[in-house]
């Protein structure tokens, strides 16, 4: 607890009254007969890091996957409620899921670069979305994305080598570069550091902090230190419910909800 408090004091200050990027109202998700989310209402502020915490199976990853409709790929998943991106309902019939996912990118738990070259990994997104009209533009996007992901210095002389040959932390940053190459507005991260060692984790966390300048980030994490270090807003999930949401500093120092308090003090989860 003290540990987290110490982290908080060094952490970024919460900026009040940011515009809202994504809104969800009463989001209910069923996997077949099992209800995974019981009506989540949450606002995600623009250009801030929102951390979703909670014990395993509480629905935080499910909620994250609703935001860019990755749950569509699961046949049994049924989503109800409303999710708005800049006021537009992402589940509206006229919304194209391809375009949505270009605007709301995703980074997964395990680094999953394509078994192709580093260059092809980053250039794939811009290519399918027609963001570059010639080789120079494409090169430019790839280089910028790798720079933004803090990977440029390490890989600039071996862009033709397979992305799978990088270390775990580099692979995860490559996946982040790949996600930002399509110029998303929101980046969803599903436990992006759970497969990384502490040093790689620190690098990725710094990166997340930098990315906050330009992107709205939603991150699911099991590490409360991580949530405290990188996020400005924290949402605590419990058994499919949103237990509490508030500025990270407040959640970790003075939570209103008993469950949050128990969880962050390590009494369960």
């Amino acid at each position, binding site marked *: 607890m003290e540990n987290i408090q110490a982290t908080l004091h060094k952490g970024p200050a919460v900026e009040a009254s940011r515009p809202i990027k994504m809104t969800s109202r009463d989001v209910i998700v069923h996997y077949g007969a099992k209800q995974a989310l019981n009506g989540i209402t949450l606002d995600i502020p623009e250009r801030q890091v929102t951390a979703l915490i909670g014990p395993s199976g509480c629905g935080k990853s499910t909620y994250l996957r609703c935001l860019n409709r990755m749950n569509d790929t699961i046949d049994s998943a049924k989503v109800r409620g409303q999710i708005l991106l800049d006021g537009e309902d992402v589940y509206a019939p006229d919304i194209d899921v*391809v375009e949505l996912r270009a605007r709301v990118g995703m980074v997964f738990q395990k680094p*999953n670069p*394509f078994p192709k070259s580093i260059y092809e990994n980053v250039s794939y997104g811009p290519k399918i979305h027609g963001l570059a009209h010639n080789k120079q533009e494409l090169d430019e996007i790839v280089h910028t994305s790798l720079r933004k992901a803090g990977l440029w210095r390490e890989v600039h002389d071996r862009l033709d080598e397979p992305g799978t040959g990088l270390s775990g932390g580099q692979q995860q940053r490559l996946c982040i570069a790949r996600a930002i190459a399509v110029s998303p507005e929101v980046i969803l991260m599903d436990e992006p550091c759970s497969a990384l060692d502490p040093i790689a984790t620190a690098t990725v966390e710094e990166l997340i902090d930098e990315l906050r300048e330009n992107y709205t980030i939603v991150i699911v994490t099991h590490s409360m230190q991580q949530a405290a270090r990188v996020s400005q807003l924290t949402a605590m999930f419990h058994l499919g419910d949103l237990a509490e949401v508030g500025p990270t500093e407040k959640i970790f120092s003075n939570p209103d909800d008993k469950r949050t308090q128990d969880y962050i003090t390590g009494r369960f989860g």
Partner: protein
Amino acid sequence: MSDATANGIADTAAGRKPRRDIGIKKRYAAERRFKAYGIIAIAIGLSFLVMLMWSIFSKGYTAFWQTEIRVPITFSEEVLGTAEQANESQTKLLMANYPQLARDGLVQLLGINPDDKKAVSAANGLISSGTRVALRDIVMNDLSVIGRTEDVWLYASSELDSALKGQYDLSVEESRRPISDLQLQYIQKLQQAGAIEQRFNWGLFTSGASSRAETAGVGVAIIGSLYMMGIVLVLALPIGVAASIYLEEFAPKNRFTDLIEVNINNLAAVPSIVFGLLGLAVFINWFGLPRSAALVGGLVLTLMTLPTIIIATRAALRAVPPSIRAAALGLGASKNQTVFHHVLPLAMPGILTGTIIGLAQALGETAPLLLIGMVAFVADYPSTPLDPSTALPVQIYMWANEAERAFVERTSGAIIILLGFLAIMNVSAILLRRRFERRW
């Protein structure tokens, strides 16, 4: 039980070792026994394989050599007509009595009196009557040969060939063997003159069906088989891969697709002769395609190969980690783009391996071809897949029915050729897999 546990804990606490009654010796003995069973099973399997190979190779390797006799042939104008006549009309050349040329040459070589009918016929029995085609080809290719005398290597008759390969017991009395004493004398004479030789049997690879063993080969059958393999590849690969991609990546999981899946798996186990009946009923009787055609054979084998390719392709698609699909979808790739840009290339080695194995299976298939009339005596190369043709395994089947000694070795020889093709295909499947295999 709980008492025992409590005692155990108490014992440990008191510093005494808990007694574990787990029968270590028994466990190890069971393990050793099981290993021994495995080794015995493998040994039995291997010994059968060795026996099979030994039987085929020991019988078949001689088929790759063929006895030939060097005969000075006088291409006389009496028999062939003059070169000028030949230029005008080839009818005479086509109809000429070439065996007479060969007979005359041999009689001269052996110094036999041409009026001694018995001796002449004995000598004539040493050379193949298939010389007609060989000599005609020489003359037709080069008319200037007419009127000259040239040494030509002619196929020996299959009796002489078999005798020299030691396949006949020559010590039995004359009337009970196909080679007479007089012929044995001639053979000795030829051997002394160095006019008889075992040469590599190219004819085995280039000739078609023949009632004479020495001029029979698998060339035509190989072409028929190649046609069918081509048709199978062109049809079964795209259809099979498309079906698998749809079933694996796009189709909703419901009772209907379950039913399809079960049926595909069952199709792989349907006896191949049933596919032959289907081919006969559908392709020949209904569509009116010609009998004995490689096209029909290829279509039937395609039906037979499809389940194999579909099962292999689906397994290969399923082996692509879901994280790759998630990565592509998360970037905003459509389902189609995800499959064709990422999943399919990664599954390709598995698909190709499955396809090659399916092709190898089709190459060795005989039963369905018998039903669509490909068990035919085809001496000429099929120029299109619609011409009558035969296939390698069917040729083997037909030769296996021949009684002559020379056909026995050729049957084994053809099996060796077929096994060679299968080995090449399987090795290329393994190489492909090694070359493109990826690990995650």
